[in-house]
């Protein structure tokens, strides 16, 4: 008997999470890994101060370069993002992100789920682009000290991944860090707890509204090598795909929407087998364009 698609996805997420965080013994020691692989970027959001992390977080790395007094823009990190984005787009969010896995698991907790009003939801979807532009790119470049250096503003004031993966484990094990706790740490813990609670009621609130990495990969969804495809000759317009999509994508009309994390739930829900993965170099047209051109 073959495993369900969703089970396969969770297993992939777990494997990738462990693969990018292999140094688990560091949790017990209260230290972090310091090997050479720390200079390479992981595809998903994964704090490099997590004791187990074997690679660097691309969002943290972008800010590190922007906050340095040498360069404002990192060719190195953008290079990784172009490769991951060009190959698979937001498949990273659905399959390769440790923080996405955490949110998926939290949403499985059986509590009554909340629906966000459509207008509020669609407005909030733009927030992640604002956070990317302001906290990841602009502030580390603009707000510099007399030495020309700055801070990773997204990591410092927003990112709950840093708090959950790194801050809390390291503070528990290090008395010297505990002595330094202040207002900022309290704010980050409150934000992280609020995020955990929200993730039980709303599907992937961080990915939908806040994640700057998701915002970057969303720009690649329509042009990446791996995409989703609807065969309109098979589609019965039953709406099962749209109902199955937790990201609120209009699957039939815009399957490669910037909001699609390519979890494949629409494909599983489609009894007509009209939805498929597509690995190819041509752009898949939306139905309106399809009809126009044919």
């Amino acid at each position: 008997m073959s495993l369900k698609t969703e089970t396969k996805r969770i297993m992939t997420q777990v494997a990738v999470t462990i693969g990018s965080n292999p140094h688990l013994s560091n949790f017990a020691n209260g230290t972090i890994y310091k090997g050479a692989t720390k200079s390479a970027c992981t595809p998903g959001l994964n704090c490099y101060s997590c004791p187990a992390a074997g690679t660097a977080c691309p969002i943290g790395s972008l800010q590190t370069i922007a906050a340095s007094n040498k360069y404002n823009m990192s060719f190195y990190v953008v290079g990784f993002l172009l490769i991951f984005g060009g190959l698979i787009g937001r498949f990273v969010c659905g399959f390769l992100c440790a923080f996405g896995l955490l949110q998926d698991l939290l949403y499985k907790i059986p509590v009554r789920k909340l629906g966000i009003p459509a207008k509020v939801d669609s407005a909030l979807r733009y927030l992640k682009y604002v956070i990317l532009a302001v906290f990841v790119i602009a502030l580390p470049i603009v707000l510099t000290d007399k030495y020309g250096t700055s801070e990773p503003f997204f990591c410092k004031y927003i990112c709950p991944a840093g708090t959950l993966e790194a801050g809390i484990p390291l503070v528990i094990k290090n008395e010297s860090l505990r002595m330094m706790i202040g207002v900022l740490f309290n704010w980050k813990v409150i934000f992280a707890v609020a995020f955990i609670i929200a993730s039980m009621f709303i599907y992937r609130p961080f990915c939908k509204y806040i994640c700057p990495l998701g915002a970057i990969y969303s720009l690649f969804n329509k042009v990446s090598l791996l995409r989703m495809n609807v065969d309109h000759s098979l589609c019965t317009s039953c709406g099962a795909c749209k109902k199955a999509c937790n990201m609120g994508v209009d699957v039939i009309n815009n399957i490669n929407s910037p909001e699609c994390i390519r979890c494949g739930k629409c494909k599983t829900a489609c009894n007509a087998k009209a939805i498929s993965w597509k690995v190819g170099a041509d752009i898949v047209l939306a139905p309106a364009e399809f009809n126009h051109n044919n």
Partner: protein
Amino acid sequence: MNLVKKIIPFALIALGAVFIIVGQIRHEDMIIFSKAATVCLECIGIG
């Protein structure tokens, strides 16, 4: 036009590879390593 669209993902991937090499020439990987191999106090909510 269709050919241009077909080339886009491959161009992005190739550009990414070039950018990584340029970044290494500029020693950006070393800047990232020095940050990632020490505890980032901002990231954990301390500094």
